[in-house]
């Protein structure tokens, strides 16, 4: 069993919902990212999505755009992120998912990336702008290295397509809760529940929900029906505001503990 499968299996036994924080790798620098990963894991995160910064993050709102700019200004590269994963793997077995845009992976070389990422201890890859129509050009290499390719589904995805994509999903399914960019609006849990319930019926893998989850209350509401909740912009905002300050890690830990609390309470 992969680290992702094991994690979700254990959570299911405990009737818990997975908490999946997103942070941009290299924001404010890779040294702090290493500490943040450790803090997130210890505070209750179940999986971590690590953003790979890109100069043109077309699916992201201002919060994550700025995080990307800070990370790039600090000299973050994909190679540097893989080295970071290699280092943190010595201390934690938490599943790590690299998330971002295709071009940095394309330029690194998909085969080389698959090899190096697997060796570093990356569990999965989520590329926002590589839809199923184009995924063939990397899927063979990723599969050979045991890297899961996470599929995104959106409110605009038609029923037939949803069925087809859910059936072949790896790792977990990421349901984008709204039409929009990251961090833009607040989620309306009861509006998305039917779609998530339907997806759970179609997929063999867990269903995580992301976009617009900013508070413990949101997380609890969505966690009542989803297998996982992703929290990105709200967390990235804390990192933006506290940068290199000593307050950063305690504040992040506090936020994660609050979020996780809503996901472990016996509501499901």
């Amino acid at each position, binding site marked *: 069993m992969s680290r992702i499968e094991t994690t979700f299996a254990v959570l299911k036994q405990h009737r818990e919902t997975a908490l999946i924080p997103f942070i941009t790798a290299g924001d404010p620098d890779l040294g702090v990212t290493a500490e943040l990963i450790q803090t997130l894991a210890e505070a209750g995160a179940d999986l971590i999505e690590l953003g790979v910064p890109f100069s043109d993050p077309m699916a992201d709102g201002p919060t994550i755009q700025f995080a990307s700019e800070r990370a790039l200004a600090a000299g973050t590269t994909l190679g540097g992120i893989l080295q970071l994963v290699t280092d943190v793997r010595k201390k934690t077995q938490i599943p790590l998912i690299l998330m971002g845009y295709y*071009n940095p992976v394309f330029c*690194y070389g998909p085969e080389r990336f698959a090899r190096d990422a697997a060796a570093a201890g990356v569990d999965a890859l989520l590329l*926002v702008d590589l839809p199923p129509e184009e995924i063939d050009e990397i899927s063979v290499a990723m599969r050979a290295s045991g890297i899961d390719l996470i599929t995104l589904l*959106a409110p*605009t995805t038609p029923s037939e397509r949803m069925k087809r994509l859910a059936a072949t999903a790896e790792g977990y399914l990421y349901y984008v809760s709204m039409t929009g960019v990251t961090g833009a609006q607040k989620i309306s849990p009861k509006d998305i529940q039917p779609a998530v319930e339907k997806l759970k019926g179609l997929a063999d893998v867990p269903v995580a929900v992301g976009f617009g989850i900013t508070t413990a209350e949101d997380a609890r509401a969505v966690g009542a029906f989803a297998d996982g909740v992703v929290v990105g912009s709200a967390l990235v905002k804390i990192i933006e505001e506290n940068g290199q300050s000593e307050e950063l890690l305690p504040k992040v830990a506090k936020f994660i503990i609050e979020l996780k609390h809503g996901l472990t309470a016996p509501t499901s």
Partner: protein
Amino acid sequence: MNYQYPDERGHFGKYGGRYVAETLMPALLELEQAYMEASQDPAFQEEFKYYLKHYVGRPSPLYFAERLTKELGGAKIYLKREDLNHTGAHKVNNTVGQILLARRMGKKKVIAETGAGQHGVATATVAALFGMECEVFMGKEDIRRQSLNVFRMKLLGAKVHEVTSGTATLKDAMNDALRHWVTHVRDTFYVIGTVAGPHPYPLLVRDFQTVIGIEAKQQLQEAEGRLPDVAIACIGGGSNAMGLFYPFIEDLSVKLLGVEAAGFGVETGKHAASISAGSPGVLHGNKTYLLQDDDGQIQHAHSISAGLDYPGVGPEHAHLQDIERAEYVSITDTEALEAFQKLTHIEGIIPALESAHAIAQVMKLAPTLSSDKIILVNLSGRGDKDIHTVADALDVKL
């Protein structure tokens, strides 16, 4: 040569494709379906032709530039006068086509990105014509350079969003247009201004622009009884060039020459010559040549011409380069400025700075060819919008 591109998945050889977020994918599939039906529907084609003729003012003239020919002392030079179109550039051919498609699909709102403002104006114009809501995304830097076009768009009823992210130019305007589209995809039609972006845009923009090459081919046949030896056009995204080139692709005797912007010079790193000095990558929904670093981060483009100031190029040009059917060269800011002044002085035609890049290449090439050769060049737009930029460059206070 049997040229059949793109394939059914929108690929031009290794390039093109649909690299977008899942939220947009269904909209692209719907657009593709709608366009395939429209392109087979004689009523749609008739309507398109009607507006091109009566609203845009087509056919645009093919003008024999006699004095420029004499001055350069070589090949005969013919100008395809897209500058005489309504709104002053080739851009309107495409926006008429797309707005008719948007209307056919029942959309009420359109959005567009713009660099020099020509595509923004052309979109705002047809939106006014059909009573649709229009929002245009434009980089802060370009708003400064092209204040006249910004005011034109506002007069036409469009809302202009100032884009401050990244380099605040065309690429960032396109990022923000895509962000807006992902948020409003259910009721909004995205009018892309060039032969780039995800499939089917490179295909449909090319199709709407081929009227340029089809007319020019027929007009030159009437004037000279033959094909040109060389067809020249400037390349930002490359829509005026694809429009000119496409009807000649299987005429192998016609050399196709695309002119990129070399800015301060390709060797300085401050340029917009994606094919000449870039490498393959994925941006804005398609795979193509890009200006980028080794880590796949997109680099700043530079050109005196806002319309060429883009770090990528349409995927079909990338393919034409790889199969060696077209050749791509580059022209510096300084050379373009000289050509701008030359054409103005000698023919009484003020070209857009974009088109001045093509004219500059003509000035290099024509003297090397004998007088029985023919160069066909796309004069893609008029230069009124660039007067302030040119005055600045020449140190003239207006």
